[in-house]
């Protein structure tokens, strides 16, 4: 299990289950490399996180290098600055991110 597997398939789902809220949104995280690549989806409806598949249709996609995603999750990244510099790219419906943040807050 990779580092981000642990984050998206264990830590975030645990947070989602703790709150028990539901939403239909699907949030995707894409690691573009350095030091790993991968594609994960967090389903707010199922309260679950897993590796993404081709047929997934996420509402919002957060894309960055694996290192940046790790630092983001760790709380060491200036997210606003990273978005402004294109280090962190977010595409799609930002409401889904709000939903995720609200459900795990």
């Amino acid at each position, binding site marked *: 299990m990779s*580092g981000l597997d*642990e*984050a998206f398939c264990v*830590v*975030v789902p645990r*947070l989602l289950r703790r709150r028990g809220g539901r939403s239909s949104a699907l949030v995707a995280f*894409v690691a*573009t490399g*350095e*030091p*790993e*690549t*991968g*594609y994960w989806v967090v389903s707010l409806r199922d309260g679950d996180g897993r*590796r*993404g*598949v*081709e*047929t*997934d*249709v*996420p*509402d919002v*996609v*957060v*894309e960055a*290098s*694996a*290192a*940046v995603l*790790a*630092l*983001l*999750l*760790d*709380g*060491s*990244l*200036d*997210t*606003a*600055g990273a*978005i402004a*510099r*294109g*280090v*962190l*790219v*977010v*595409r*799609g*419906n*930002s*409401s889904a*991110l*709000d*939903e995720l*943040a609200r459900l*795990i*807050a």
Partner: protein
Amino acid sequence: MARRNDIAPASDTVDAVGGRPLGQVGQVGQVAGARPAISTAPVAGGQKPWQTRLELKDKTTSAAVAKAVLAVMAGLPADLLLEPVRSAALALTEGQTSQDPQAMQRVYQRCLQQLDPEAVAESLGHLAVAVNDAAHAATTPLRHRDEVPRGKSDAADWHRTWGLRLLPDNDPCFRDPKYLVALNQESKGIRATTHEGRTSLTSSRERFEAALAKLAPTARLLAVTESGSDAVSMAFQLAIALGRRRQVDGETPFAAATPKLGFFDGVYGGSRGTRASLNFEGWGEKTSEDLSAWRLPSPTSFQRTPVGPELQRVMALETEALAALTRQLENKKEPLGAIFLEPVQGANGVRFYRTGFILAVRALADKHGVAIIADEVLTGGGRTGKMFAYEHYAGFEPDFVLFGKGLQAAGVLAVGRQGRAESQKARTFDLGVTTAGGDATRFLKGAQVLDRIRESNLIANAAEVGAYLEQRLQDVQRRHGATPDASGVGLLVGVQRIAGANVEVSHSPGKQRDRYMPPLTLTKADVDAVVEALLKKADFNQLATEHENLVARRNSIARDGPTKARDELDARIEQLEQQLGQLAI
């Protein structure tokens, strides 16, 4: 059957978002197609990062260094990192950042193994806020007509917002991701919040009530309104409902009457409709119905503990007021339904009752089964150094409290006072029903304000800094040669207008004393800064007057007059001009 995909697909060729390939999905605060701008260039140098000893003050050095190394290896600039990782990254020298995939894998794994779930939740909250901010930045902002006077900071705006702010707009609590995300969510929905919570009890209202309960445990949210004025309007409605339930000798003689609301002279009582203002001309009094028959004499004073002739004046008014109130309470033709009381009269230049009088009013009201409604729209939330101003009168509790302004939400609270008569308690539908009364987003803001006030102990701060402000304002008045009359409770301080005072900070509504209503986060240093400016201005005005007089005297001396006198005047004038130059604001 979905096929698992272990390797991330190229985003713009395989994945789909909303039925479209990822690359075609609209960006949020980003240029479409932008790729992470991370340098992959190898970094020269043979020394491994973990072999380097870094001297960081923080004891979390080891973890911070691992993250810093990861960031540097990934080509992430240090200014995109937060402390303490930023410092650790800056401390790394070029030779310590060699590009070693295995080393990078190790620090990467270490970073992720130590993930704190709470930090993850907070980080994703920050991400959501940052994305929203980026989206807002990309749109044309709405024109905002700021109420803060030009050239003044929000923190120095001590009056113009009419007590609407208990916290400055830039308070850190308003950048809390949990709050901002919830606010964004609420703004997208229509959440009805009727006064009884019967239609849709929203989580935001629950949050507000929970936050309120921690500061005012005996208060229950009875009704929510759009503003404090609307809450005051409800006082009239309450008076009718409660008065009809008053009992006399076991009967309810006023069941079919329209009971009235008695009120003291000098209360603001700004409301809506035909009762726009209870007392103040120009604030709706001319368009209000005539309520003067229900106005009671106001035994208030600028002094919290009046003495001498002022005490005699207040005591005489107290006797008069209690007699008038007794007449209203015993009136069978036009019964009284409730008494409207502003515990500290804010709009009237900050005036106080005496505790004995307030307790006498309470006793009379209880004798006749009449409720007391406290107007705390300006004073509620800790401004006075207590959650509600009525708490300054030991042993006194009202039956209802009206709130608004700084708490961001507005409405009516029922106070859980012991021994209330039925005509002092509200029933369901006493205040009617609205389909969507209240505002879910304002509940959230109100809850955020209440939590901040409680967690940062700002009520105690208001009491302490308010006392200091009062004392320093008296210093200014003494410096001006004026009688030091500055008086208040907490951070609601009234003061006679000082000639030459900084009117942009202190603004008077008419003929009353000026009111100072700074944010509850005010510090003694903030007080000193403003007071120094006032003193400086006071000195400037004093010197300017002297300068003007001396110039007139010198000009009056004939050219062939005594040289010595003219030279002495010139010397003093020059000295004054230098001092004035130094004091110029």
